């Protein structure tokens, strides 16, 4: 950390205390800059800390009173936590990829948002790990993952890759800060960015394999799942970077040429189209033989998951239209389109998770108990008639707490770390 501060003083922009002296070169945004590290940010940090603490308390309630307080049961054994886990792993992609691709390939980047983008990746990765932890029945036995690792388990792969990804994101951020201070060579930065990029692609593939390698769930078991996870991650990750960049520019944290946003929008549009294309390919391959795969398609397009399916398709399509139509690329619409894409990808995660449990392989009538499903007393038709899973308020509260943890990490990064772009930052940054 002492290295950080040295760099900060040398660069005059990299300011750990944030409230202290500001760079003269930032006079253009000086008026707004004064607010940085001020009341607004502190209040936001305070609010997210309070929500996070409330989430921890609710997690305590879940552990002591039992997970019977959640909407999960044997027939729908994962829920909002694992949905959000998938979602946040995806969100974490964008920042790192947006930041590392230009560096890795030596092409023009996206202005000064590189460091902020990686910070958003770190925050999302922390939230993703948090989601897995609150989902565990026995979090006190987490150490066993390292003592008794079954390296054949996709979940174990994910833990290894996600941990590496988090550490690597931090190293990458540190290297960028040091490079700004002239302490890390561009070659070194380029090498780190290539490694980070490979890890980012791996982290999404491995998360997909948690689901995609399970032959017992019709909806999950497809080779397309890993590339599709990467494309979805690129969609919501890029959208998040767009929203964050516009918000921070508006707040005066950084100045960013509109041309970079246009470039980002075109990229987002391309990612959205690829993601929808994958979805179309998958639906066609499932439905065409007319066998059990047709059930999956019917569940999405006409069954209990209809709202999520259409929100995703329409939201992503609208986002693509906004991104590809020059006249529509206003700040407000770009933010709206990005939020639609993020919402759409969240809906995709819901479809995927719930869809895995929605179709039972053995659907013979038999004895049902409250351990098998919350709607056990309404029979199989009651269980599978609607969505097989719906979260309880407790789950929503704990999830909100983990999200607040991610927000807190991001805001603390903004406040304490020197993430703002250098003024003389070349477009090739």
């Amino acid at each position: 950390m002492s290295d950080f501060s040295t760099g900060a003083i040398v660069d005059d922009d990299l300011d750990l205390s944030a409230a202290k002296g500001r760079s003269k070169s930032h006079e253009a945004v000086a008026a707004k800059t004064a607010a940085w590290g001020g009341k607004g940010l502190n209040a936001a940090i305070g609010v997210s800390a309070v929500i996070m603490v409330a989430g921890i308390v609710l997690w305590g309630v879940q552990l002591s009173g039992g997970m019977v307080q959640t909407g999960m049961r044997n027939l729908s054994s994962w829920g909002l936590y694992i949905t959000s886990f998938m979602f946040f792993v995806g969100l974490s992609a964008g920042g790192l990829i947006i930041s590392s691709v230009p560096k890795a390939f030596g092409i023009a980047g996206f202005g000064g948002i590189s460091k902020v983008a990686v910070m958003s990746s770190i925050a999302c990765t922390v939230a993703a790990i948090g989601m897995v932890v609150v989902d565990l029945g026995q979090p006190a036995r987490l150490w066993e993952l390292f003592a008794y690792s079954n390296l054949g388990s996709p979940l174990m792969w994910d833990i290894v890759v996600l941990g590496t990804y988090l550490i690597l994101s931090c190293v990458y951020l540190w290297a960028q800060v040091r490079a700004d201070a002239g302490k890390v060579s561009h070659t070194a930065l380029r090498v780190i960015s290539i490694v980070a990029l490979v890890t980012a692609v791996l982290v999404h593939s491995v998360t997909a394999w948690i689901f995609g390698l399970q032959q017992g769930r019709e909806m999950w078991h497809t080779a397309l799942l890993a590339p599709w996870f990467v494309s979805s991650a690129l969609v919501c990750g890029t959208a998040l970077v767009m929203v964050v960049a516009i918000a921070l520019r508006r707040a005066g944290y950084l100045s960013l040429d509109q041309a970079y946003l246009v470039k980002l929008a075109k990229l987002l549009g391309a990612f959205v189209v690829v993601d929808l294309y994958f979805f179309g390919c998958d639906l066609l391959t499932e439905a065409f033989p007319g066998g059990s795969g047709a059930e999956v398609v019917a569940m999405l397009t006409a069954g209990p998951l209809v709202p999520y399916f259409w929100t995703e398709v329409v939201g992503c399509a609208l986002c693509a239209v906004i991104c590809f139509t020059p006249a529509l690329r206003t700040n407000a619409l770009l933010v709206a389109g990005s939020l639609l894409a993020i919402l759409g990808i969240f809906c995709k995660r819901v479809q995927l998770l719930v869809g895995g449990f929605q179709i039972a392989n053995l659907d013979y009538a038999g004895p049902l108990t409250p351990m098998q499903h919350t709607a056990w007393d309404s029979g199989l038709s009651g269980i599978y008639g609607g969505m097989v899973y719906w979260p309880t308020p407790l789950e929503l509260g704990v999830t909100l707490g983990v999200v607040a943890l991610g927000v807190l990490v991001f805001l603390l990064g903004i406040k304490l770390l020197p993430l703002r772009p250098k003024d003389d930052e070349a477009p090739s940054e």
Partner: protein
Amino acid sequence: MSGSRYGFAIDTIRCVGCHTCSIACKIENNLPDDVIWNRVLTNGGASMDTASGTFPNLSKEYVTVACQHCENPACVKVCPVGATFKDPDTGAVRQDYDKCIGCRMCIAACPYTGVRSFNWDEPTHSIGFAVGDTDAPEHQKHTVEKCTMCWHRLARGEEPTCVEACLAKARHWGDLDDPNSEISKLIASREYKQLLPEEGTKPSVYYLV
């Protein structure tokens, strides 16, 4: 019994759907309230004990479903800590409650819907005290469990309790690898089906038809 593969043959023609195996299992293993490892399902109408079709062309069959103790178990591969594992001597798929971290990866992996059970609450017993075999492992909150093939009985050289309890003598248990065992002869001489053979899990439970 080293290196054997033990399994069940269940005679669906003899089975009367009385749930005795299910209850015997529940008592033997001291299963908590609302937990059933061995369920008697009706392959027929929409509700239990109903037939499908229209009179006089009706069909109804009882399928008792517990862990299939697969030769190629999906659950064992995905458990990150090896809490669910295949016993090398008997081929039984076992579960170590002390190790289980409660991630429920195995429930997601198992194609046999509802076979694996998670203790969503502190295990309780409606009669207020533990019943069953003293060797049956204690149940733990927030861990996954399922049929153990009565591992504690196997270790003493006994057969699983559901087989012993079956009133209709519909349940058979034995070494599938030994061609001279009673169960191997039954499977060789009778027509049988297995649950979800297309999943490639190679279940060790045969339903004689």
